[in-house]
């Protein structure tokens, strides 16, 4: 085609627009990364503060402190969300999906402060939710802010591209996982390849990752040390674990939706009361087993070195599932990536421990199955296999587990799909859309 035809039919205009997109994407990524890094630091500080008050010795004073902190922060966090920005409740990924699909609008002036404060308060105070949901939603909101400041017209494709790039940048910054952030944008938010989405999310994720690494540390989130990669003989066990992870994932999805339904029907209860009850429960659980409350990343690290008592694992898993489902269902702000990794890690360690007891020579390291469990449960719940695999590599910082991870994820994906359970974010998005159309 000659250049005249290009300009006539919008191709050249697209190119020009794309060139302006690059600096904007960089800006969005850096801003989202900055915000996410501060969020991570805030969480680390508040979790440390709570751990200091509660102490590790199971004292009565510690119990009182844990219960009081949990109840108070849970109540305030939930009230803040419900009072100022109801759309900031939960993970934020379904919301961003709806924004990208044009089903709803994003108001960054409300979301940014509410999500930040409610997240730091709630998760830092003990709610069993993850940091990536807030950083993803805040990333999207940051992009909206940048668009408003640079005068990108409302309703333009560019806005959606930048918002999704900002969301990916949020994920990248939350976990030091730039590639996963980008794959997430492509696979989960858009589901197609387009050059502008590619370039924008690439740049935003890299920028966010660099900023977050500089401010919040550059090590992989779940660094693996001293666990040798399993050989081909671990593959049948990985497939079995995948099937189990598929069932657990479906159970997670069902109970999460049921919990949302449960709290949704009790809309007239004060958010202060609901938040306090869930916060109290999480706080007490965190007093009984240190590390169980809050985002739970420490628990995964413990599981990876096999420091969790084997006999208690199923109970821990169940309690943790209850904590996450309760905290998410009541509408507090926080994601479910990390919580599902915690459940996957605990489940994986129980499976690995069992396998080790059956055949110690064959399964010498139960810790291997921790990683597989995390990948499997992600595949079953989110049903975004590429994002899950890339995220697992970036979280652990090693590629050695790729083959068993692929097998496990594929089995879990197949089971969840065969059970007819919809992917969680799709189900949540449809639920939000249905509620919106009912209320209007």
């Amino acid at each position, binding site marked *: 085609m000659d250049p005249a035809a290009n300009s006539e039919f919008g191709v050249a205009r697209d190119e020009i627009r794309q060139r302006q997109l690059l600096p904007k994407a960089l800006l969005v990524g850096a801003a989202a990364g900055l915000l996410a890094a501060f969020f991570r630091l805030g969480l680390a500080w508040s979790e440390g503060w709570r751990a200091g008050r509660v102490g590790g010795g199971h004292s009565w004073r510690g119990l009182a402190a844990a219960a009081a902190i949990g109840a108070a922060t849970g109540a305030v966090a939930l009230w803040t969300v419900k009072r100022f920005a109801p759309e900031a409740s939960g993970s934020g990924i379904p919301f961003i999906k709806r924004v990208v699909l044009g089903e709803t609008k994003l108001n960054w002036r409300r979301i940014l402060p509410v999500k930040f404060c409610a997240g730091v308060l709630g998760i830092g105070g003990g709610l069993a939710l993850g940091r990536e949901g807030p950083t993803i939603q805040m990333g999207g909101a940051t992009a909206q802010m940048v668009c408003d400041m640079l005068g990108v017209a409302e309703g333009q494709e560019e806005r959606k591209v930048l918002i999704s790039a900002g969301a990916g940048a949020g994920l990248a910054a939350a976990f030091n996982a730039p590639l996963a952030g980008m794959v997430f944008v492509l696979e989960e938010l858009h589901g197609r390849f387009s050059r502008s989405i590619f*370039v924008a999310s690439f740049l935003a994720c890299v920028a966010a990752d660099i900023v977050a690494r500089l401010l919040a540390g550059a090590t992989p989130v779940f660094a693996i040390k001293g666990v040798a990669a399993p050989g081909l003989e671990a593959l049948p066990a990985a497939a079995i674990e995948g099937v189990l992870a598929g069932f657990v994932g479906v159970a997670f999805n069902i109970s999460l939706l049921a919990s949302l339904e449960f709290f949704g029907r009790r809309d007239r209860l004060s958010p202060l009361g609901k938040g306090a009850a869930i916060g109290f429960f999480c706080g007490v659980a965190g007093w009984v087993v240190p590390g169980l409350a809050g985002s739970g990343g420490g628990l995964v690290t413990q599981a990876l070195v096999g420091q969790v008592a084997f006999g208690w694992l199923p109970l821990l898993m169940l309690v943790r599932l209850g904590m996450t489902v309760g905290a998410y269902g009541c509408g507090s702000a926080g994601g479910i990536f990390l919580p599902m990794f915690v459940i996957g890690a605990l489940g994986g360690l129980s499976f690995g421990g069992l396998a080790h007891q059956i055949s110690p020579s064959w399964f010498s390291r139960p810790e291997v199955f921790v990683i597989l469990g995390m990948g499997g449960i992600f595949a079953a719940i989110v049903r975004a296999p590429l994002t899950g695999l890339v995220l697992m590599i970036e979280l652990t910082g090693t590629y050695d587990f790729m083959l068993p991870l692929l097998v496990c994820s594929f089995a879990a994906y*197949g089971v969840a799909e065969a059970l007819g359970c919809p992917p969680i974010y799709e189900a949540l998005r449809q639920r939000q859309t249905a509620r919106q159309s009912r209320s209007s």
Partner: protein
Amino acid sequence: MTSPATDSIGRKGLWASFERLKLLTPSKLWEALGLSALAIAAGLAVMLFHGLTHWIEDNTIARLEHRHTWEFVVGSLVCVMGGSLLASWVIATFAPTAGGGGVLPVKLAFWRDFGVMRKREATVKLIASALTLGSGVSMGPEGPSIQIGAATMSSLAGAAGVAKQSRRAWCAAGGAAGLAAVFNAPLAAITFILEEIIGDLNSKLLGRVVFAAVIGALIGHAVLGPQPAFQSSPLADLSWKGWTFVPVVAVVAALGGAWFQRLALMVRSRLNRLVLPARVAPYRPAIGAFFSWAPAIAVFLMTRHAGVFGIGYEDITEAIAGHLAVGTLALLCLGKIAATAAAVGASGCGGIFAPSLFIGAMGGGAVAGAASHYLHLSPGETSMLVMVGMGASLGAVIRTPLTCVLLLFEVTNQWVIVPALMLAAVVSQFVARRVNHHDMYEEILLQDGVDPHQVLPPRHFKRWREIPVSALATFQPIVIRDLSPAGLRAVLAASPHLRFPVGGPDGRINGTVARREAELAMQSGTAPRIDRPEWVGAKSTVGAARKLMLAGGADFLCVGNPDTGELSGVLTLHDLLRGESVLEEDE
């Protein structure tokens, strides 16, 4: 309105979903079993190809390398020419479609022929590529692996009774299995098939592609071992000095890749214009082989490195380890560009992944080496810059940034290079688009006079609206020139169309006539009613054509110049619908 999501799992509960457990229906089970069996076959075929290539290499070029210089010079020429001539003969005699690289045939088969490929294509490709690569022509094994895998699975599925219309999934899965096996890189194999061949991340074929890639990787893992393709000592994070060089290395490597593409396409167009006797024409790759031997031997005589011959992975590993001097690196880079451009331009039987990686590694290594002369980069940082260069160069040629990042990560197993690779991928896309309009595959299609839009579907609706009318229109329209009943009868009997353009004796188009009107006119013996023609330019978009149809109420547009009345084709509602139907991904 209640959402289907809560309906399906919220209320009916787990037990209800058990009842709908569709995994174990016999047809699904058979498909899964068949898929695994055929993926194993594809993986094994690719491993056979790998083994054969290395066996030939060990017994030709590699053996000669340690002999006397003149023996190597003469021997390598004999090997390269012999291998290439033999490969050309095999291709010309048994399966002419198996020539050239491997990705484009798979892509064309996927979109044009429902993914149907012949068994013979796999066999011939296996032998011809092994001969070409093993004897020392500068090309890569990845494209052939994709084609061998895809052809194996597609043809065996056909033999097992899978209908022609549902072979796409098998073709795509086979390609993934092949790439995953040869590189031990399942993730990159999945994304490459999704990004380059299918062009959609949420494809319905995803499950099967992932499954086949896992099995392919398993086979590769079992046969070749768990180690990555390029091994290096563990790396640490880049310092700020290293980071500043990432874009520089990326630009240089991407320029290397882009120039390689340009040169290869230039050689290709020259050679295609060369008029050769019909008996000699199939041996065109041998001409390319000779011109790829010349730079390879020149570089060997200057540096004593034989990396420009064949695949050249050993020299890439050396470059990563930092064992090569700057001058050597630069010479190897230039030599590889020239040698591979000649081989690819002559449609030699081999891929472009490995040469692109080589060019990037050497170009990146040269820049990093020169820089560390002044800035004292650590050895680890130099290695990382070599890897960055590999990613940038490959990205510039095949234009699939996600695949490049994942591939480089999977073949090196170095987690720390991912952010740098991502940055390099963006830079390389930017540079590549400056130098060439399209990626290698699309340029080759264009050079062959095929409009990529006509073969490959648009990726989404916006793109669909923007494709030119010429991609869909029917050229060679049937024009009614004689409006007498006899003339009408002849035209109506010969073609089933519903509307025809009417041309005057001077060749101008005066209007259109509907079939019904023509039939009525034939019966009554009068002249038919002629409607005013609606015109559309060949370079107008489908969106514009659609608007014209809606506004004018016509289902028939004349493509051409309304001022001169010159008609080059017609665009009917049927053409539009047919074009739109490829938007859907038929299984």
